[in-house]
């Protein structure tokens, strides 16, 4: 720098405190360090620095985003858990509702299977998911009016009562909506047995119905011989019966098997084995057998394709068919059942399946055998439960072929 340049520089320096300080600094630094080298190094560091700093703020945003995602997923999981709990509750209600509807049907049925003896054995078929209560004949006479095909919802419910209440003479409070109705009917039902027989201690008969290979026979029918009153096994072949007697003679039957008679003993778990129907010496031809088989199997069926239906049997159509076949009480008589040329008696029923599985609004859509209607309805009401596909009320129909 020339002197003149220096003068100019100094002039500026005087007005610029920063420059002034810097000059001071460099004067200090002179000799101790090579400032230009240091400055070059610093310049490089400054250029490199941005990369780190930018990442820092980015990281901040990332951590915020991550936190939000965790919160969201946490809330979704909680929501699902709560939903599942609700479903469990609904299922239980379904079962209890189904129980009650079967109970009602049984009472209706009792009319047709009139038990008019002085002291009919008190048999109460007792199935874990499906309590079926059969009060003695005396009580059921009062319920003649309920032969109506159309049943209102309240009536269905009012006919229902928990089995505990019927079994014990003391009446226990029933947790259902139509409480008053229930209580009155209960009284008529339970009072009579109590009055007739005094306090009866009931025995429990349970067991399982299987085939020769130990496979369970779902919905096999098991009936007490004298009274003709019976029940059906559940989808796993298990059944329970309650009776005042300590020994029961029962007949068990299931589609495609020889029916068998057995004696059940109280408080013991019985295993009933059914054997396959044997081939008969003068067996019909293969074609005939095929036809017969076809008719047998398709005893109950929907008249629309499965997809169009809003509801279906809970345990599936094939099991439901078994149930119908095993438990049908032929209005024409036993012999007719296996005849090849059965009159094609059909009853088409339509009904609603509620989300809890209960059946309402049962109607006969068409039928060519009016006497069959009752049986068809009985089968439906006593039968295994249905489920609505959508989770809401589903309307569906099915055909019972006799």
């Amino acid at each position, binding site marked *: 720098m020339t002197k*003149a340049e220096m003068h100019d520089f*100094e002039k500026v320096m005087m007005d610029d405190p920063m420059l002034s300080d810097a000059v001071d600094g460099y004067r200090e630094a002179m000799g101790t360090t090579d400032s230009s080298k240091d400055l070059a190094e*610093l310049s490089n560091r400054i250029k490199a620095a941005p990369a780190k700093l930018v990442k820092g703020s980015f990281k901040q945003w990332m951590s915020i985003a991550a936190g939000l995602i965790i919160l969201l997923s946490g809330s979704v999981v909680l929501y699902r858990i709560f939903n599942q709990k609700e479903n469990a509750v609904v299922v239980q209600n379904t079962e209890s509702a189904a129980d009650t509807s079967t109970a009602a049907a049984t009472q209706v049925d009792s009319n047709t299977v009139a038990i008019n003896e002085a002291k009919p054995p008190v048999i109460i078929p007792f199935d874990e998911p499906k309590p079926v209560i059969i009060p003695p004949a005396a009580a059921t006479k009062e319920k003649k009016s309920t032969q109506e095909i159309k049943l209102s919802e309240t009536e269905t419910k009012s006919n229902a009562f928990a089995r505990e209440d019927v079994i014990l003479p003391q009446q226990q409070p029933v947790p259902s909506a139509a409480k008053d109705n229930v209580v009155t009917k209960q009284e008529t039902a339970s009072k009579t047995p109590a009055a007739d027989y005094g306090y009866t201690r009931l025995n429990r008969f349970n067991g399982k119905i299987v085939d020769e290979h130990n496979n369970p026979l779902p919905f096999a029918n098991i009936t007490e011989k004298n009274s003709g009153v019976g029940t059906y096994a559940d989808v796993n072949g298990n059944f329970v019966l309650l009776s005042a007697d300590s020994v029961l003679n029962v007949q068990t039957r299931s589609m495609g098997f020889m029916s068998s008679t057995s004696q059940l003993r109280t408080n013991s778990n019985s295993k009933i084995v059914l054997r396959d129907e044997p081939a008969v010496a003068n067996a019909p031809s293969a074609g005939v057998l095929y036809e017969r088989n076809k008719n047998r199997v398709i005893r109950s069926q929907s008249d629309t394709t499965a997809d169009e239906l809003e509801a279906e049997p809970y345990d599936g159509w094939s099991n439901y068919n078994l149930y119908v076949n095993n438990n049908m009480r032929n209005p024409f008589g036993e012999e007719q059942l296996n005849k090849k040329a059965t009159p094609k008696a059909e009853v088409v029923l339509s009904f609603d399946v509620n989300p809890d599985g209960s059946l309402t609004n049962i109607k006969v859509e068409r039928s060519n055998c009016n006497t069959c209607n009752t049986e068809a309805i009985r089968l439906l009401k006593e039968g295994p439960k249905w489920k609505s596909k959508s989770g809401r009320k589903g309307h569906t129909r099915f055909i019972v072929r006799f």
Partner: protein
Amino acid sequence: MTFLREHDTKDRSDAELVSLYRQQGDVAVLGTLYQRYMDLIYGVCFKYLKETEASKDAVINIYEELVEKLKKHEVENFKSWLYTLARNHCLMQLRKGKGKKTIEITDGFMQSEQLLHPEDVQQKEEQLQIMEECLQQLSPEQKQCVELFYLQGKCYNEISEQTGFEWNKVRSYIQNARRNLKLCMDNKTKQS
């Protein structure tokens, strides 16, 4: 793209770069701005910290402080604001490292740039007269240095040689003289 951007930013003023940085948060813009003054910052730091390594660290640290603070504060004059920031940083360093050592703060601040107002010729004449009078009131050393610097246009080195005063002394004489003159002239203009 970076090429163009650098070219762009280099031609822009300090104020433009500051606002650009505040809008976009682009640290590269800040880097360009800082590099303009990095030399000075280094010098200032060295003045206070008196050490190469410490000064280098200080320069980098000040830069990082800058990244955040420039976002938050409204800055009119970037250069002077930066200068204050650097100085405060250095002083804090010193306070931490060495305990309480008092450091004289130069009265550089008093010497901010003065805006020149447009003046009439007549006023100028009057002012010159006043200045002459005030000049006489200075101490001899101050008077001498001022005359040599302003009237003769000499650089500090020359004045130092001529008067025998140390370089730093020359500088401080001139600075004090300026202040005194200013005070005197203000008084005189008030009176008249």
